């Protein structure tokens, strides 16, 4: 479904209540994951006396800074399961949330530029098919047919040797996704509280019983952390550590163009990913800055690198102008997979480490994290992503399929 109509203005989509003195559960972070978690807590578990606390404005973190790519072509069974579940939810959510966020299943190509890439990609196509994820291997000619502006000459620095293709993948308007969840949360009685920064936690022994905020202390029975780039800062306040490193990741857009780019093209090897937004901007993402950072701005040389790759792959971009660049703070783990589950603090749960690729996971992150918060136990889809894996060694190494090196 896509009516291509712009929805209502966000001000009218939810109320802005004062925080109450106590809730059954508090979700920290008003990005997509926090909102989706609150939505599924209310819808699937009947928990409506809950609040989402956001230190800034709704979806002002990574949620509305990302390049909006949605796909599920991950390598390992655990990842394929959770991301494919997310994709199935994306396919029904516009109807369920009664809000058109322009989910467009225009397909995603992940390019291969070396023999190693080719082998890895073919292996991933095989793994995807075994997991029920739609995937195909395309030769350079087929790549060209799907995206005619791509340069498939073999005399360039990183020639296109083929691509994996997931036809059901695509993009969605990320800010509208947040508004869609927020509107439904509000309807279900969830308090969405902006400009409310969590500054500490109240504990009774090892059990969390409240959160301290810049708007006073709020008692609560359960806390769910959905704070992306700031998860380890919050964990430290609660007295435990996370194996997370926060890095700046940036993206940029061009001015508006006629439709020229019909699909989504990603290249892990040369580090650029491109799609054309509904309005017409070319949306491009880059790699992370190598160093830790919380500054929400990235290095210029990363853009330079990304643009060089983009212009070589898409020669017609050479005369396009960059309109805006911006950065987000992504929370990376050493196996490039998220951490979702219980924490060393009783009644405190964490959803983090989605790094450079968590937008696509939003519905499944919310659904499974809500299950964990409501029942205190893992959902079968998020069980492998527990914090304990760093101790047991059962890592889920998705560097190859994560698409952004980190």
């Amino acid at each position, binding site marked *: 479904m896509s009516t291509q109509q712009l929805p209502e203005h966000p001000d009218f989509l939810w109320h802005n209540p004062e925080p109450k003195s106590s809730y059954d559960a508090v979700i920290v972070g008003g990005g997509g994951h926090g909102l989706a978690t609150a939505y599924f807590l209310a819808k699937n578990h009947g928990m409506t006396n809950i609040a989402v606390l956001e230190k800034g404005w709704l979806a002002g973190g990574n949620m509305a800074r990302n390049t909006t790519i949605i796909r599920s072509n991950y390598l390992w069974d655990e990842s394929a399961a959770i991301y494919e579940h997310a994709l199935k939810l994306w396919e029904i959510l516009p109807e369920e949330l009664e809000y058109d966020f322009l989910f467009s299943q225009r397909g995603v190509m992940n390019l291969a530029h070396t023999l190693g890439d080719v082998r890895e990609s073919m292996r991933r196509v095989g793994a995807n098919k075994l997991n029920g994820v739609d995937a195909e291997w395309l030769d350079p000619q087929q790549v060209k047919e799907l995206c005619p502006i791509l340069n498939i000459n073999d005399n360039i620095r990183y020639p296109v040797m083929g691509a994996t293709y997931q036809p059901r993948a695509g993009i969605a308007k990320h800010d509208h996704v947040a508004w869609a969840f927020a509107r439904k949360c509000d309807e279900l009685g969830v308090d969405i509280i902006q400009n409310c920064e969590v500054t500490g936690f109240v504990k009774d022994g090892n059990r969390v019983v409240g959160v301290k905020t810049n708007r006073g202390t709020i008692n609560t029975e359960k806390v769910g952390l959905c704070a992306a780039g*700031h998860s380890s800062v919050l964990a430290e306040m609660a007295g435990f550590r996370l194996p997370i490193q926060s890095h700046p990741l940036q993206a940029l857009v061009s001015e508006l163009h006629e439709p020229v780019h019909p699909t989504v093209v990603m290249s892990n090897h040369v580090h650029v990913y491109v799609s054309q937004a509904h309005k017409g901007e070319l949306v491009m993402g880059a790699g992370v800055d190598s160093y830790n950072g*919380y*500054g929400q701005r990235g290095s210029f*040389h990363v853009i330079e690198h990304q643009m060089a790759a983009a212009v070589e792959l898409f020669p017609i971009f050479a005369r396009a102008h960059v309109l805006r660049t911006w950065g987000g703070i992504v929370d990376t783990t050493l196996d490039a997979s998220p951490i979702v589950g219980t924490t060393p603090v009783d009644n405190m749960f964490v959803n983090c480490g989605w790094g450079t690729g968590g937008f696509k996971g939003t519905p499944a992150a919310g659904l499974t994290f809500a299950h964990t918060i409501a029942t205190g136990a893992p959902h079968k889809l998020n069980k492998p992503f527990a914090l304990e894996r*760093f101790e047991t060694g059962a890592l889920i190494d998705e560097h190859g399929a994560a698409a952004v090196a980190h």
Partner: protein
Amino acid sequence: MLLISCPNCGSRDETEFHYGGQAHVPYPENPNDLTDREWAEYLFYRDNTKGTFAERWLHSTGCRQWFNMLRDTVTYDIQAVYPMGVPRPAAPFPPAADTGTASTGAASTTPLSPSTAPEGATK
């Protein structure tokens, strides 16, 4: 882009360097005695400080020496550059002259001894 003041070569663009993560993380003294939890801590858990952070950098396309640096992870101001093996300089540091520009603290004048290898020699 950061302008990083290599103790051997002077100020160079960030692109000449390689980031090495948190500084002062020693290799376990008795590796055989470590529990799984302790191994996890050593391998996967690093500080993720919001503020002044001690980290290692390698001047990969210059002198190819490792050194340590104190950098603010919010403003990206470089507050001190100092050799491997030297303890972390004590705060406070004067505010950097220019955002994103290296302003080297007193410790950076300490010459880097050629024998200093990175602690733990990981990465």
